[in-house]
């Protein structure tokens, strides 16, 4: 290992730490809701304060998202790899769960975040 190798490692770790801090503290701090998108289009927006189960059923397949105790996780999915079910529950602004085979993304937003415009309503955009 040479000096430049160590420098590169340190630089990357510092950049990762800076980016992590930025993502952690950017946007509205109080997480309010999750926005579910399928293939880039908003499927629905759901409050994190209301316990419920969201079933996403479409041409790509089926996913079941569960919201409880202020966080959301993927309970079931019929995708081939099931990676989405291995994500830890999300509860903080900007955290996300991705199901690549179903082109599905779950993202946590705060009150002032942009993106899902249909605030408090459980809008199903389909």
């Amino acid at each position, binding site marked *: 290992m040479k000096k430049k190798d160590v420098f590169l490692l340190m630089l990357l770790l510092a950049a990762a730490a800076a980016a992590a801090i930025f993502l952690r503290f950017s946007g509205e701090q109080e997480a309010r809701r999750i926005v579910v998108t399928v293939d880039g289009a908003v499927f629905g927006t759901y409050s994190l304060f209301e316990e419920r189960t969201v079933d996403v059923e479409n041409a790509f397949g089926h996913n079941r998202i569960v919201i409880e105790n202020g966080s959301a996780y993927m309970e079931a999915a019929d995708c081939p790899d099931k990676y989405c079910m291995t994500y830890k529950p999300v509860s903080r602004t900007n955290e996300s769960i991705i199901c*690549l085979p179903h*082109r599905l993304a779950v993202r946590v937003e705060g009150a002032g975040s942009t993106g899902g415009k249909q605030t408090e309503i459980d809008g199903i955009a389909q």
Partner: protein
Amino acid sequence: MKKTEQIAYCAMLTALSMIFSYIEALLPLSIGIPGVKLGLSNLVVVTGLSFLPVGWVFLVLVLKVTLVSFLFGNFSIWIYSMAGGVLSFFVMLAVKRRKGFSLVGVSIAGGVSHNAGQLAVAALTVKSLAPLYYLPVLIAAGAVAGAVIGIVSQRVQKHIVR
């Protein structure tokens, strides 16, 4: 090195990469973020870069990704692995040609670019920036995994190149 020797090494590295992938599949390291892993099979690509002509190493990479994806995964996994693999291959070549970096630096750059490439494909697939939340942890994990793979490759290389 004779051409027959190169073919033999290429075949051996490809076979080894499949065993490494199998070992890694047996020891799942789950921390709640898919994509964070050691990438043991990349050992053969990094080691290959130290003593084989570039074209052969690229062939090992393509064979490794294709065989492993269809053995342990599926077509969509093949696309993501290929995107990460090919991007990291060219980044590693670029770093290797620069002065001052050892195989460890090459491998660190490879690990990070592999994860960055996969994340970019993920963002394009779901047509959302949501996956980018995992960029910091994937950069850090790629750098550390790359360093470990690089250090091991350097040790192995000493015994191959005489």
